[in-house]
């Protein structure tokens, strides 16, 4: 009798501890994901009483319609610029700061804070500042260019340029984050490896880099690539603040298209299809990240 009471009390405790969170996770994550997947095969509109199943129509529009497709191609182009450059600059800054740390640790810490500042700052507010910096007539950038007798372009309203401008802002915002991850990776490299490399004749800076630093940073670099990629595919704040996907869809990206089609035009079904495409991209990167984390655990 007492045993049964005991097990019942235990079961109640488990229910009480883990139950609320489990229900919340189901209601707020797993049920919504299933609903989005289903909606993506319908023509449902927010506020409508009914809907029709339309098969893969939404996905076909997204792939075939040249304007709709821009959301996908622009996101890929944006990511293809931001990922390598943000990682390269992050690595270079980290290498520089790591070497400065040996003889001027305070200075290195101050510079690190400066590079990390855009990560902590509210991106929407900073995007409004970028809008002023890049203003065709009043902006600082074009004023400086004019001083060098160059006519500065309309950075945010030129169809051919706007995506690259946004990519520069994206790089500006993420370099500090990658730098921090690389600094942690550099700090974890044991000093005796450099001594060993020196005995083997690698005493120039860049020989040391290729024989020791770069191979030892391998796991960090892969992690940084995946984190930067997921971040780049989610670009939204700068687009919503500065261009609204324009001019003429030149800077349309996946998350902004989800927002516009779903919550401005109320095309819930179509927006769900864009959501699923976005989800597949992010899923690929995140799964890659988990694989990496597992393999890193096995190393140690």
């Amino acid at each position, binding site marked *: 009798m007492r045993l049964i009471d005991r097990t019942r009390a235990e079961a109640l*405790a488990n229910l009480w*501890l*883990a139950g*609320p*969170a*489990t229900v*919340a*996770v189901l209601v*707020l*994550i*797993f049920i*919504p994901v299933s609903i989005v997947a289903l*909606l993506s095969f319908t023509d449902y509109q*927010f506020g409508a009483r009914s809907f029709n199943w339309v098969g893969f129509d939404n996905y076909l529009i997204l792939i075939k319609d040249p304007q709709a497709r821009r959301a996908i191609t622009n996101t890929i182009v944006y990511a293809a610029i931001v990922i390598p450059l943000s990682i390269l600059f992050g690595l270079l*800054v980290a290498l520089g700061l790591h*070497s*400065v740390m040996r003889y001027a640790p305070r200075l290195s810490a101050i*510079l690190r*804070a*400066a*590079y990390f*500042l*855009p*990560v*902590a*700052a509210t*991106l*929407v*507010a*900073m995007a*409004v*500042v*970028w809008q*002023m*910096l890049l203003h065709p007539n009043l902006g600082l950038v074009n004023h400086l260019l004019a001083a060098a007798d160059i006519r500065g372009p309309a950075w945010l309203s030129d169809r051919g340029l706007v995506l690259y401008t946004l990519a520069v802002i994206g790089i*500006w915002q993420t370099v500090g*984050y990658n730098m*921090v*991850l690389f600094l*942690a990776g550099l700090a974890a490299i044991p000093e005796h490896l450099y001594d060993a490399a020196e005995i083997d004749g690698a005493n120039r*800076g860049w020989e040391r880099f290729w024989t020791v630093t770069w191979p030892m940073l391998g796991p960090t670099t892969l*992690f940084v690539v995946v*984190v930067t990629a*997921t971040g780049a595919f*989610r670009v939204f*704040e700068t687009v*919503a603040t500065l261009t609204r996907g324009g001019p003429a869809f030149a800077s349309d990206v996946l*998350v902004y298209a989800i*927002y516009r089609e*779903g*919550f401005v035009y109320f095309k*819930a079904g179509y927006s769900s299809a864009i*959501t699923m495409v*976005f*989800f597949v991209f*992010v*899923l690929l990167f*995140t799964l890659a*990240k988990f694989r990496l*984390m597992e393999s890193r655990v096995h190393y140690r």
Partner: protein
Amino acid sequence: MNSRNLIGRAIVLALLFLGAMLVLTPFFWMLSLSFKSQVEIFSPTISLFPDQLQWDNYRAAFERTTLLRFLVNGLVVCGGILFFQILFALPCAYALAQRRFRGRSLIFGLVLAGLLVPFHVTAIPIFLGLAELRLLNTYGALILPFVASVFGIFLFRQAISAMPVELFEAARIDGLSEGAIAWRIALPLAMPAATAFAIFSVVAHWNDLFWPLIAISDPALAPPPRGILYFRDEESGTDVGPLMAAAVVIVAPMVVAFLLAQRRFIQGLAVGGLKG
């Protein structure tokens, strides 16, 4: 120390300074414009520093917009989200880490799978649900969707797993209830994880634009990023000074917090990279 080394150091430092200057330019320009008068901003010649420090733009920003309201909204929303996230996550994490029961690995599997889902993916159904409950355009709409943080559960579980089992056995023998063990023993010991999670959560939600853009249309409920866009769209390019002052005020809390607690901040945001 030979001269080649010295030159090398000088080049590295020069490049690092140049890069830092470029990175800081938007912050500098924001501050500079926020102190300039209307006339100075629109003059054909441009000067890097304002003629004189005048606070008119800040006064205008607070008077002409509900800037203070935006800040309070941000505080309420971030505080509310963090409170409920920990309220849900900690007991669950404790159960997953230190108790054995049926369904434990299933729940942990759900948590790991949940890490793969970015919030954007759930936005449409959650919007429908909130509309059904007539909760759109309330603080609830801004807080409720985020109360179940699988990332929080994951972080707390990792921290509590690393604690010795004997500790919890001893607490049980002393007659503490399981809830009391979670809150009075596990939480204080998991403080480093809790701090990292809190920083990650507050920064993410203070800076978020996507969900406020969808869930509310009433400016009185807008968190700071949504608020500054209301301001910008209203003033149509003439009130640059006050707009920049508003940007300074909105950016300041996170930047100041970061400068005061750099190591914790960097840890908190770096840990956020684990989330999908």
